[in-house]
């Protein structure tokens, strides 16, 4: 750049650790990754196919397995859209408005993360179970929540509650309210403002939250296990089905079904990475140039 001759000493990178330290650290991290992530993943698929493709396939199309897959999909299909709507509403109100009790709401949203899933399951049993608070009333009206599909859906909703909101609150807060104000001054209604201004600005963050929410909804074990009752073909989700098969020493079938969840994890990971890249792009795009 400059015409002044600089002493021709090779530039030493003072902010970099010496080579052996770098290799040691990278090696440790890799070792950890292989031991705790890649190896288990390989084991899952290895065990699943240990008795051949036909056994693998048979374990997946067996009626009880199909029922478990169907139930998991149903629970996710109900829980994820509901939590998407709830998460959007909560994030919108927290990020864009001031109201008393706001910090309490933020704490409450985090509750499912801080409570052990088993406890969340037990709460539902205590509330809706036959000997619970609302149990007798529900029994009288012939409504069964616990040890039935509704209970599983409820538990799933509770456990996956925070994902969308957690993702959107910081995003919306950083974007502020000026664009919404601009839209309103220009004559847009509340719905138009939400649909044309707020939602497009958070769509990638929302999708990211939904994907995480979905992964958890399909993989949830603890809370669902407590409320399910483990009735084969009726109230077993995929994770519960895996547990049953495993306890029966039916290893190949257990891992075959488990491989479904592993694949879900891989797809989620890929989608998450892609979305993170998009979000980053969006962030750099919205940084003012001047």
């Amino acid at each position, binding site marked *: 750049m400059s015409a002044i001759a600089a002493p021709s000493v090779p530039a030493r990178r003072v902010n970099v650790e010496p080579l052996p330290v770098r290799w040691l650290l990278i090696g440790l991290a890799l070792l950890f990754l292989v031991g705790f992530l890649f190896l288990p993943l390989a084991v899952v698929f290895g065990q699943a196919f240990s008795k051949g493709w036909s056994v693998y396939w048979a374990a997946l199309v067996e009626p009880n397995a199909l029922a478990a897959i169907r139930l998991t999909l149903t629970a996710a299909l109900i829980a994820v859209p509901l939590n998407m709507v709830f998460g959007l509403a909560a994030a919108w109100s927290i990020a864009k408005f001031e109201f008393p009790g706001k910090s309490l709401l933020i704490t409450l949203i985090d509750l499912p993360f801080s409570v052990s899933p088993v406890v969340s399951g037990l709460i539902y049993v205590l509330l809706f179970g036959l000997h619970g608070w609302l149990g007798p009333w529900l029994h009288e009206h012939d409504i069964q929540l616990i040890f039935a599909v509704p209970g599983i859906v409820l538990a799933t909703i509770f456990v996956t509650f925070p994902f969308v909101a957690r993702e959107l609150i910081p995003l919306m807060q950083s974007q502020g309210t000026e664009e919404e104000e601009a839209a309103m001054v220009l004559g847009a209604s509340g719905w138009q403002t939400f649909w044309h201004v707020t939602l497009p600005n958070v769509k990638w963050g929302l999708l990211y939250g939904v994907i995480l929410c979905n992964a958890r909804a399909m993989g949830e074990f603890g809370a669902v296990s407590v409320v399910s009752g483990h009735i084969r073909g009726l109230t077993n989700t995929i994770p519960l089905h895996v547990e049953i098969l495993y306890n029966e020493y039916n290893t190949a079938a257990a891992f075959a079904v488990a491989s479904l969840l592993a694949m879900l994890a891989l797809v989620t990971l890929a989608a998450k990475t892609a979305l993170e890249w998009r979000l980053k792009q969006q962030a750099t795009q919205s940084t*003012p140039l001047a």
Partner: protein
Amino acid sequence: MSITIRNIQKSFGQFKALKNINLEIGAGELVALLGPSGCGKTTLLRIIAGLETPDTGVILFHGENTTHMHVRDRHVGFVFQHYALFRHMTVFENIAFGLRVRPKETRPSDAEIRRKVHDLLNLVQLDWLADRYPAQLSGGQRQRIALARALAVEPKVLLLDEPFGALDAKVRKELRRWLRRLHDELHITSVFVTHDQEEALEVADRVVVLNEGQIEQIGTPDEVYDHPATPFVYQFLGDVNLFHGRVHEGQARIGDVQLELPGSPERRDSAVFYARPHEIDILREPDGQAAIAAQIIDIRALGATVRVELERQDDHGIVEVEMSRDQFNSKDLDRGESVYLQPKRLRVFAERNGEENLGSAA
């Protein structure tokens, strides 16, 4: 469309942002709300727009009470300091937004929207940017697009919140001249908020000076600059030197120095006199008793003017004097020299609470 602001008060918790504001803005006028940060000027602008509600008082647009009218029904154009362009829309869609969100009965056809947006883009001289996204524009371009977007809905009132605050000095200067020309063309009633006195004086028809939630003075740029109503206005509109003394027989007494003070016959035992840096002469010889002895401690050339900093010999107060480069050259002053100061013009204000806490010469 005229705007009438009557008895507006607004508090945020314990903080009184606006204390009983009364203001009349004529149709087609360009008015600046000028004041330091935290003086309530932005709050007042947002109340006019309908983005905030006042605790008490009313806002009338052309005689019609709009205090409780929703912001979307007020038909105002609002330009934000940080532009607030819709980041996921192109420039074209940004400007078209206000037309597209209208109910079906009043929404213009697509062809008409296209024509109108291009007219506005031509008006702000950025027609070639229609397909860009806000992130791809410079700050000055973004603000002009924001203005075009605000004008698209044909507002009856245009409100601008520190419109040039986030821009660099050169672009600022360009844009404010451009805004003035645009206003002369469109004649839309406009109110803009600024903390930059130069900007207010250059652009506005009238300047409203605000301080701590109250109006200090309303007047044309010349009026507020030449005849500031309060010490605050005097100080806010430019650099100022303060001299403590008294008034006696129509004369200002500063230490041993006696100066003529026309139009101020009353007697006062304690008074503060104000003089701007360019209103003080530097003399080589004492002019009887009418000049203050001082020593030059610093000389700084700032473009076309030279600023001389002096220390008074009586009470060691610092005085700043400003003169043109030619004047400076003909006087041939040097650092460390002893000279005499003679104010050409002094202002003294009626006693008022808080007058003394103005601080030293800026």
